[in-house]
């Protein structure tokens, strides 16, 4: 992961967006930026060290990408396939994912805190050291996934499948779970109370 140049606006401590000298907050022509960012993702199979914050993607295939060190903060993804993609050291915090396909993906040290997921499929994925704290996850599946050392602290989950998952060191402290299924998973290796983690 490489850090990025700062926004040129005096006093602004946010990173400048890829290809620009301004951050998302100070960017006026967001449509052009969004087109550029979408083009970069679509046209490259290996994508490294870019600030693509605030990106909006609709009905696209980003399958089998190798992505590392990317800032996707505040991203909006609707009906996007990330199937088979590899993500490392990526920040997706405060993003929105609707009807997205993450099946067979490999994620290491990725941050999704504060994001919302609706009807997303993470089945058969390796999601190691993932930060899902404060997320809202509805009608999603992590079935047959390795979630080693991922955190779901203060997450709200409704109709979520963790069937046949590796939950070693997974932290669910303070999470709200409605119709969450842990069948065939080693939930005894996960943490559900603050006392169990100490």
């Amino acid at each position, binding site marked *: *992961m490489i850090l990025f140049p700062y926004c040129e606006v005096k006093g602004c401590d946010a990173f400048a967006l890829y290809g620009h000298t301004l951050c998302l907050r100070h960017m006026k022509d967001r449509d052009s930026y969004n087109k550029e960012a979408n083009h970069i993702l679509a046209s490259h199979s290996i994508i490294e060290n870019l600030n693509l914050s605030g990106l909006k993607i609709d009905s696209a295939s980003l399958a089998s990408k190798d992505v590392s060190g990317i800032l996707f903060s505040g991203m909006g993804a609707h009906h996007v396939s990330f199937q088979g993609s590899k993500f490392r*050291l990526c*920040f997706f915090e405060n993003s929105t994912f609707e009807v997205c396909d993450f099946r067979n993906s490999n994620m290491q040290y990725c941050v999704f805190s504060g994001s919302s997921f609706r009807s997303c499929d993470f089945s058969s994925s390796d999601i190691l050291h993932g930060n899902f704290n404060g997320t809202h996850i509805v009608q999603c599946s992590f079935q047959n996934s390795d979630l080693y050392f*991922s*955190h779901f*602290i203060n997450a709200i989950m409704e109709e979520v499948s963790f069937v046949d998952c590796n939950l070693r060191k997974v932290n669910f402290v303070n999470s709200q779970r409605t119709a969450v299924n842990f069948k065939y998973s080693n939930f005894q290796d996960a943490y559900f109370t603050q006392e169990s983690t100490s």
Partner: protein
Amino acid sequence: MNVEVHFSVMGFSNCFLVAAESPQRGKTTESEKRDTKEALLIDPGIFDESLLMLIEGNHYEIKHVLLTHNHQSHVHGLKTLKKIYAASVYARSPVVEGFRTNVLKDGDTINLSNVCITVIEVPGHSEDSLVFKMENILFTGDAIGAGRIGNTHDSTMRSLLIDTLEEKILSIPGNLFIFPGHGPLSTLDAERNFNADLL
């Protein structure tokens, strides 16, 4: 500044490689291979083949080691590392694993291998716990991680840790990245909003 993460199976901890310059992937000639770049390591919990490959494969040479605190899961790899690299060691404790260190204290600002480092003392998990601020990243050791604060011996130390985190870390303006000693990465905003021990 470039940062790479390595998972140490010893104590399930995170070790970080930091360099002012990006790696030289794709270098092929002998002269290019010899052109190594200086780097520093934070918390070598273990020094194994995968960490060696991370360093050498990217043509780095470890010049300095920073320790967030003197616990085995963060320092165990020091002895092996010192056999390979003539690296200087920086920590709050004067001696770690038998090696004399350059002792750091709260407020110190040092420049190592062209990386500017600000030292923040955050006692509680241990008496010698340090947080290192480098540009927009906080390397927090076991002071604070994603959604949790570090374990403490007793309620007094827990109160000390929480007070110090609020005073010195959460009060830092802006949204910095948090690279902790264990578990997932995070951001300052995420910890302000979702940390189970601070809400």
